[in-house]
Structure formats: structure tokens, C-alpha cells
């Protein structure tokens, strides 16, 4: 038997934090690619500590629903899962290349395929573009549309900015938008000044965050001037400084993100059959189709 475990941050305070993990887990469950699919959290239950023992499978693929490589993927998750032989060097990554390693966990007799985070997978670029489609209702953008990919910045984790630049570069090369920029919450170029960085009339702003919480729902909309008070809401798009800003909320809530989770496991050798295609089919444009 083989299992997929999606490990996320979760929250003691925000009940919505675990939702993307649940939603993507359900999409993958329905694809039938794994005998078991479980969600586990740092701040909710089952905890990383206890999740492996809830599985009957002996092959387990662990995919972190985190944006960047760093403290969580390199220290907290391996330690809490008891992957005692994990060494971040085995990932041989410069910050965005972590792929997978195969390890034993100390408390269960299972083979654990520990994968890199969803946020740095190549396919995340497509999810960002899909998120832009979902919020604008457009299939194509063209020269009048700019895309801003928003990240935290390096204050807490140097690799967090790398992931943002990585996807911004990839999407720029796709040539889908007139302009593509990486912007940050706590360093230059700052999201507060987002309109300064674009000549395009329309700017789609997609935060590279796993789930919506105060950064994506309160800070960023207020920082960009979409609203003075997030509680009163804002329009999509909102006119700011002569630009129309289409703010999408966390990219991790996009249904297509389930595909990245699945691809991470497939890259680690999980025999997922045609599930990748099935999930892409099902989740591509799922938001738009729902009239969202």
C-alpha cells in the first residue's frame, strides 16, 4: 500500500489555515492514486509527530504544503517526523531545487519519501497563472496585464524570496503577461508601491502563500491601498493610482495546487498512473467554472 501525507502549518487561531490541505487532499483522494491520503499539521492534528503511525501503508510520500525551503522543510518537519538521517545537503538545493529523499522514520517501519515543498516546484508557476485567470475570469492576458507575485521577503527566510523570483522569472519567460514583477511584504521592491513597478493598466497580484490569513487578507490589501480597513472589503478590480488591481488571495487555495502536490509525489517515484492528468483536468479552471 502507498500513502500520501500532505504536511501543512495549520494554526491555533485561524480555522481556515488548514483548508487548502484538506481540499487538495480530497482532490487527490478522488483521483485514487493512493491507498491512503492524510493531512498533518504543525499546529493542528494529527501532528507531524503522530501522523505516520495512523497509516497502514508501508510506502509513504510526504509533501510539505509550504512555499519555500528553509526552517520548516529542513528542520521542523524532518525532526518531528523522526527522519533522523535527513540531511538538507541530500537535497542538493540552492534554495529552490529540493526534490526528494528516501528515508526511514524512527517510530514506524515504513519507507518515507520526503519531498521538496510545493512552493518551489516548477508547476507552481502554472498555478500562479491559473490563479490570475481565476481572479480575472480571463484565459489570456496580453501586454496590458502585469503580474505581481508577492512574497514575505527574506526577513524570516532567505529562500522565501528566491522562490518568488524563481516563479516570476519562469512566468516572464512564458510571455503570458506584459510585465512580471516579484514584490515583497518586508523588503524592496515593496508590495505597498506595487503600482510604481508597472506600466500596464491592469495588475494581477498573486501572493505566493499557502493559505489565506492575516497577511493575505488584511496586510496586503491594506498595504496596496485596496482598502483602508480590510473588514470593509474591496472591489476586484480596485482602481489604485490609475491602475486596476486584481488581487487574488493566496495561490495555495487554487484547486490546481493539488496537481503540484501530486507531481511532487510522482517525482519521488510514486506510481500515480494517469492521476496527474486527471487532477489537472479536474482542477484547471475549476474556480472559473464555479463562477467564482
Amino acid at each position, binding site marked *: 500500500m502507498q500513502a500520501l501525507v500532505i504536511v501543512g502549518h495549520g494554526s491555533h487561531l485561524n480555522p481556515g489555515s488548514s483548508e487548502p490541505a484538506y481540499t487538495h487532499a480530497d482532490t487527490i483522494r478522488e483521483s485514487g492514486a493512493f491507498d491512503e491520503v492524510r493531512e498533518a499539521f504543525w499546529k*493542528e492534528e494529527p501532528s507531524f509527530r503522530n501522523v505516520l503511525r*495512523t497509516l497502514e501503508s508501508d510506502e509513504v510520500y510526504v509533501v510539505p504544503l509550504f512555499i519555500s525551503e528553509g526552517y520548516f522543510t529542513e528542520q521542523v518537519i524532518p525532526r518531528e517526523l523522526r527522519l533522523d538521517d535527513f540531511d538538507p545537503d541530500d537535497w542538493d538545493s540552492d534554495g529552490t531545487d529540493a526534490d526528494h529523499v528516501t528515508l526511514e522514520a524512527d517510530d514506524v517501519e515504513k519507507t518515507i519519501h520526503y519531498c521538496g515543498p510545493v512552493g518551489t516546484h516548477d508547476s507552481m508557476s502554472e498555478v500562479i497563472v491559473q490563479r490570475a485567470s481565476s481572479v480575472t475570469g480571463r484565459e489570456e492576458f496580453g501586454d496590458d496585464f502585469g503580474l505581481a507575485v508577492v512574497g514575505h521577503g527574506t526577513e524570516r527566510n532567505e529562500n522565501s524570496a528566491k522562490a518568488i523570483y524563481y516563479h516570476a522569472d519562469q512566468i516572464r519567460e512564458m510571455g503570458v503577461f506584459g510585465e512580471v514583477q516579484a514584490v515583497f511584504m518586508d523588503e524592496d521592491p515593496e508590495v505597498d508601491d506595487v503600482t510604481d513597478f508597472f506600466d500596464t493598466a491592469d495588475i494581477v497580484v498573486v501572493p505566493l502563500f499557502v493559505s489565506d490569513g492575516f497577511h493575505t487578507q488584511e496586510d496586503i490589501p491594506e498595504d496596496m491601498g485596496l482598502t483602508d480597513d480590510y473588514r470593509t472589503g474591496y472591489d476586484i478590480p480596485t482602481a489604485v493610482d490609475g491602475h486596476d488591481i486584481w488581487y487574488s488571495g493566496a495561490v495555495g487555495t487554487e484547486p490546481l495546487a493539488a496537481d503540484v502536490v501530486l507531481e511532487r509525489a510522482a517525482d519521488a517515484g510514486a506510481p500515480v498512473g494517469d492521476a496527474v492528468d486527471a487532477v489537472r483536468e479536474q482542477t484547471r479552471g475549476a474556480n472559473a467554472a464555479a463562477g467564482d
Partner: protein
Amino acid sequence: MSVADALVDAADADGIDFDGLTVAAGDDGYQFRTPDTDAVLTAADLREHADSPYVTNWYYWEHDIGGHDTPRRAFLRWLEGGDDRPVPERYDALDSGHTRHWGELAVTVTHGDAAGSRRYDVRHADDVDADTDTLATYTDPRDARELVKHDDDDGYRPLSTAPSLPHGWAFTDLDGGALVDTIDYVYPATVANWHREREGSLDVDHWADVADRQTGIYGIVSDLDEDALEWAAEACCVDSQCLKRREWDRDEDDALDVPRGDGEFPCREPCSLFVAAARKFTTLEREDTREYTFELTPAEKEQIEDIIGAVADDRTDDIREADVYEGANRYRTRFLRAKRMDDHGLSGTPTYPEDHDDDGDDGDHH
């Protein structure tokens, strides 16, 4: 595969020895034994016994459930007393529904339609006698995730085993696998750790090790001193706050005095909520005490004690608006605030008097 086919197959293969039923193929036919029968049968006669409770029971556990040595199987067996009650007694109990409790859940096992099969119903124990029609019913275990996220007052439940499960719902007509999945969503990993404990292999991680392991902002929790750890466990881990039975202590040789609780399932290490609370307690405990002088009437002193008690025991919502005999009543508390508090706090005594020398400066402590 029909029960009769499975029975003959198993008899021909390794024989059966399960829950009071033994069947073995011999030279004269099949030796078929239960506590009530002892016969040597032809294959055709053996098939006739396929509806014996002993046979359908065997079929259920070996064909429907399987999973030898798994927590799932052990839990399902425990639910109906499978390891200590004879089959006819269990079947009688299943006729009317056999209920066991798991935390705040009541799980009821009944006979299913197919021979030997069981169906499971799970709901809040307080709703065990409620007519199912009056409850919101579910059949997909995944619905449990959302359902138990909030308590009856719509408060978020970050700790799954807090005794605040919402009421008014039931998962009905579940098979064994779906039942265990439902339990796993309501009380994650409790079945797995309970099973380990029964097997004598529960890996308890005590506070000293868990605190040592922490990094980042939680690195400081190992500074929490002995008394404060006791208070923290009393604050978070007793039965009124968490239904897990605390099996961890300060370390292997140094048990905490706080009662462990009577829960069915163990807590094998301090949870993330406990560690996060411990971090706050650690920073609070760094402060030195000071002497403050203020005046209170005896009734006011007791009222403050009442208020602390009401908040700590989560009774504030139960205190009626006009019940001014309760110290933690809102009007009583507002009266106390009006009388005894000003910009400087309780009885006009600043928290940090040194910041208030000129009485115009509010200081920067919050």
C-alpha cells in the same frame, strides 16, 4: 465470495481457529467445532453452517475487516468486546445496538444487512438517545473535519480532544473502515496511540525531551521551571480541558503531581498547543514579583477570586445577566471596575510606578 465458499476454502487451506470457531479438514471430513457444536461434516454439510453466528463472525473479521495487528481492527474489536465476549453474547448486544464511548463520542455497533456484517453510528455521547431524524446526518467521514472545527458556540477548536465537541449530528450506516476514518478526523491519532499502549509499545516523550527538541521561538520553553510546568499541566491537560490521559511527565523519573485524567486514549507527548502555551508561560515567569498596595473590601477580594474562577472554568456564559449574587456577574464586575479602576489600573496603582513619576506619562508597557 460467499460465506459458504470462503468457509470451505479456509477449511481446506489452513483451517480456522477464531473466536470460538474451529474448522479443520481431516480424512473423515471437516471437523467443525463451536462451544455448542462438535461434528464431522461433509463439504455440503459444512456449507449448511455458513449462517452460524460463529461462521458469519469469522467471515466479517477475516474477510471484511482483515488488517491483523492494525489499530483499526483492534479498535473495531474493542468496540464490541471482541476479545472477551463470546459470539452469541455479542450478537445479542448488536441486535439492539452496542454502544461504547470514545472521548465525547458514542459509537454504536449494529448488525448490517449482509451476514455477519456490522454497521456503525457515531455521534456526540449526549445525543446517544436522540432520534436520528432530529440530527444532521452524514455518511462521508471527511465531513467530520469541518464539523468538529467549531464548538456549539462557533468557537474554533484548535485542540481536537478538548471536551467541547459540538452536538446535533450523527454519522450513520458506516462500515468499519469509514468509522475508524471518522474517529481519526474527530480525534486524530487517538486510535493509533491507544493501540500502541495496549500492545505495550507506546513511545512516551517526556517534557524534558520535548522542550529540548524545540527550536526557533519555542527554544526557550526548557526554561520553564518545575512549579510552572505543574501549573501549565493543570491549566491545559486535566480532564476538564483535554480528554487525553497525560502519560508524559517532566521526565521518566520525575512524575508531575497533576492528575493524568481518566481518558480512554493516552497523550504521548506535550502537544503543539501545550508547547505554545508553555512558551508564553515561560516569558511570563521571567518577571519578578513586586509588591503592590491597594485596598479592597473583603467582598471585593472574593469577587476577584470569583472572576478568576469563572474565566478559568469557562463559566462566564452561564452567569445570568441579573444574577448580581455571582461575583463574576457582568453588572457586579462593571461596578467593581467603575469603583476600583482608573487609567492607572486597579485601585489607581500603576503597574510600573517608576514610569509614572510625573503622573503624565503612561509608559510604554502593555
